[in-house]
Structures are given as structure tokens and as C-alpha cells.
């Protein structure tokens, strides 16, 4: 476990800012205590300093997970967000997409959101903007990338993809053994 280097921090923040914009500040600078990002086996974990201090008691190979896993660095040094980060992305999300109850299950099985399943979308969403996907009952289901801008969404046919699937809460069951 180690702190992130400057480059790694930058790469991660750039990815996070696609979803929550400048709200990352609220994750870094929290009034309720000291929280930090730590890298462990290529994964980035977000935790309080108390948890961190407790975790130092465990050797590297025995430590599976600490705090919340935000994502991992690929071998080409790109950052992939994991669904476990949803708890922190959802409250600060700048762009949201609501899916209709009928399309909820399809999304939770790892499929893209089609126009037919699109309930609502935040105004001014640009193409390829990171979005958090909600059910119509405002339950965060996962996140994705807008395939079409809000304007374009109105015109496209019902079977075209409007949100690319990136992660959904169904992964908690599907990828149970690899999700840490």
C-alpha cells in the first residue's frame, strides 16, 4: 500500500471529474475527518486515516481490501472505475440518467441503455459525458457514458443506444469474487 504518485492522482482525478466534476474537492477535503486515497495492488482505495492506520498491521499479501475501492489502474496506466465507487459518485453526480422500470433489469445485466428505456436525462448532457444511472425511484444503479447528447436523444430511434454501460450494481453478484 502506498500513496498515489502525482501522475496517478492526476489520471484518477481526470476520470472522476468526468462524473462528479469539481465535486472531487468534497471527497478530498472532508469536514468529518481525514480521508485519503491509497494504492494497493494497482487498486485505489478511499479510506479514513483511522482505517489506514489499522490496515498497516496487515502484510501486503494478506490485505485484500481497505476502505472503498474506487477502481484500478490498468497495466497501461489508465484508470477504471469500479462499481464500488458508486456510493461516492452518486451523491455528487453532475449528470444523471433515469431508466424506466422496464429497462432497469436489462441495465443491471450489463447492457447499454436504449432510447426506449430512457426515462429522464439531465439537460445539457454532452456526448461521451460520464453519467450516473438511476432508477425512476432515484436509486443509483450504476454509471455509464452518454452515447448521445441530450438534444440528439430526442431525435434518435427507440432502439439506439443512449448510454454506454460501464458498471452497474449487478456486478456485486456477477463479479463477486473479483470485486474488492
Amino acid at each position, binding site marked *: 500500500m*502506498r*500513496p498515489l504518485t502525482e501522475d496517478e492522482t492526476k489520471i484518477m482525478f*481526470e476520470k472522476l*471529474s468526468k462524473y462528479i466534476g469539481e465535486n472531487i474537492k468534497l471527497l478530498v*477535503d472532508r469536514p468529518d475527518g481525514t480521508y*485519503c486515497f*491509497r494504492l494497493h495492488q494497482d487498486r485505489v482505495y478511499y479510506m479514513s486515516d483511522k482505517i*489506514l492506520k489499522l490496515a498497516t498491521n496487515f502484510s501486503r499479501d494478506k490485505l485484500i481490501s481497505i476502505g472503498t475501492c474506487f477502481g484500478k489502474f490498468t497495466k497501461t496506466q489508465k484508470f477504471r472505475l469500479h462499481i464500488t465507487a458508486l456510493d461516492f459518485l452518486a451523491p455528487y453526480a453532475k449528470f444523471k440518467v433515469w431508466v424506466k422500470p422496464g429497462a432497469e433489469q436489462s441495465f443491471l445485466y450489463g447492457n447499454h441503455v436504449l432510447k426506449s428505456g430512457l426515462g429522464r436525462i439531465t439537460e445539457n448532457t454532452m456526448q461521451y459525458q460520464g453519467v450516473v444511472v438511476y432508477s425512476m425511484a432515484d436509486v443509483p444503479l450504476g454509471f455509464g457514458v452518454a452515447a448521445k*447528447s441530450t438534444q440528439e436523444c430526442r431525435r434518435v430511434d427507440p432502439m439506439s443506444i443512449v448510454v454506454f454501460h460501464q458498471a452497474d450494481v449487478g456486478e456485486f453478484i456477477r463479479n463477486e469474487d473479483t470485486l474488492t
Partner: protein
Amino acid sequence: MAACSVEELLAKAEQEEAEKLRSITVHKELDLDFDVGSLLACDKNRIESRDFRGQKKEDFLRALARDNTQLLINEIWKLQTERVEEAIVAKLPEPSTRLPREKAPLKPRPPTKWEQFAKLKGIQKKKKTNLVWDDTAKEWRRRWGYKRAKDNTKEWLIEVPETADSNEDQFSKRTRAKKERVAKNELNRLRNIARAQKVKSPGVGLLPKAQQSRDELAQAVSVARTSTASAGRFQDRLAKEKAPRNSGKRRKFEPLIGDFSSERQKQLELLKVLDSRRPKLDITKAVNAQMRQEDREEAAAKHGRKGGKGRAGRGGKMAGRRGKRGKAEGGRGGGKKRD
């Protein structure tokens, strides 16, 4: 009395004689081993440890040394002697004791690249005669060096090959080729030395090439970067340039539990930089807004057309549609259009 005195004298003379003899004859149980050539005598007799340990240790050692030295000198006296300028000189034989050498014997030089290759191929050195017959000079000349036979540097005329460029200077071409061969040989020589001493031979650097590969270009860049007075220490990197790999520098990380507040401060600084880099005028957003505006206008125009009685220009064209659709909205649509 006289007889007595004679006897005494004789006895005294005898004693003196014995004394003299004792000084040059030494009795040893075992004979010493002599190596007169290196003035060496080895005493293999046992030493009485009681004598050695006793009070007269020094005297004992001194006596032993004297006796052995005497024996060695006796041995020297047995050799042939001659007189050179009032001094008696003995000729020492060759030393028979083999002394170990001070330094380790030299290892054979490891074979050069060519020698390795020749051994592999079974190429053997052929002895060539030093002198060869020179047909033009009509005499025997050396094969190499000054005034050699068939010296092609002394030719006053060179035939231009058919394939060669006619404007090319054949003389300078020949000297250039020679210089290159010499340089190549020198390089190979240095490489052989480096290989023999197991040091990494310095890279050839960058030989000029018609087409450089990607790796060669990267190497060229890294060589150029480190070819400064400070070995590239203060050299800036380009914006998206990656750090050179295998530069021998180890990565260093911040401590796991360090200064949390400074870490946070650093991250906030980074966020500020990232934020400032984002364009204030988002083009996509602006275009979207523009599109929406147009949408709205279009919709408004549609409404306007539905009831627009005052619009003469398009009247004829859209007449049928206008007639078919909502009459009730006509007034409102027209009103909107006006402002």
C-alpha cells in the same frame, strides 16, 4: 722445568689449534641442506626445547645462527674461488630452490571475436613471406608498409568504374574507404578489449543511417538528452513525453502514513490546475444551446404558420397544410411571432 715448559707450550699450542678448529667445524646430527646459489641453508635438526625455553634463549639462538652460518660459509669455501682486486670471490652455482612468484601468472588473453570465429570455422593462420615480387618496379618489395609492392595509394591514374558516377573523385573515395576501415578496425579492437575485461563496451552511439527505426530514434533522443554538461540533469521533458525506462533510477513514494494535510493540499492544488484547464466556453454545450434555441424557434414558426394569415411569402406553398390544421391556434401563434 724446561721440559715442563715445553710440554706446557705444546699443550697450549694444541689448545689454541683446537679452539681455532672448533670455531670453523660444527658438528650436527643431520647434515644441513644447502642451496648455495641463493645462500640458503636449511637446518633439519631437532631443537632442544629445554634449551630454547630456558633463560639463555637469546644466547642459544645466537649460537645456532652462528654455527649454521659457519656451515654455509664452509660450503662456500668449497667452491672455486679467485682473487679479484685483493678480494676473494667465489662463483655461486645456479640457485636450486624454486621461489614462488610474487604475482599470479598472467591469464591467457581471451580470444578476440575474429579468433573465436576462426576457431569455429577452422581457419588457420598462414605464414606469408615478407617480400613479394613487384612486377612494375621489377624488384622484391615488402608486402606491407613503406615502399610496399603494388601500392595502390601511389597510383597516378584510376579507372572510373562503369557503374560509378563519373563526377566522383575516385582518389578521395579510396582514401575515405581506407579511413573508414581503419576506424572500424579501431572500434573492433576497443570492443575486444572491453569484452576481455568484461566491461560493457560503450555503445557505438549513433551511426548515421538512411532509415532509423523507432528504437534507434528513441536512443538518439536519450543520447542527445544526456549529452549536456550536467548529463541531462536539468533537461526538461516534453509535455506528453514518457520517462525513459531503465534509467537506473528507483521510484520513490511518499510515506504511507505521512503528512495528511500536505497531501490534501497537494491534491487540492492539482484539482485547481485541472479545473483551470477546462475551457470556460464549452463548445459542445454552446452548440447544444444553439440547437435548442433553433428547435424552439422552429417549433414557434410551425405554430405561427398554422394560423399565420399575414404571411404572404410562403402562403401559396403551404396553403393546403394550413387549411387542414388547427384554426384555433392561429391567433396565438401569430402573436408569438411578432415579438
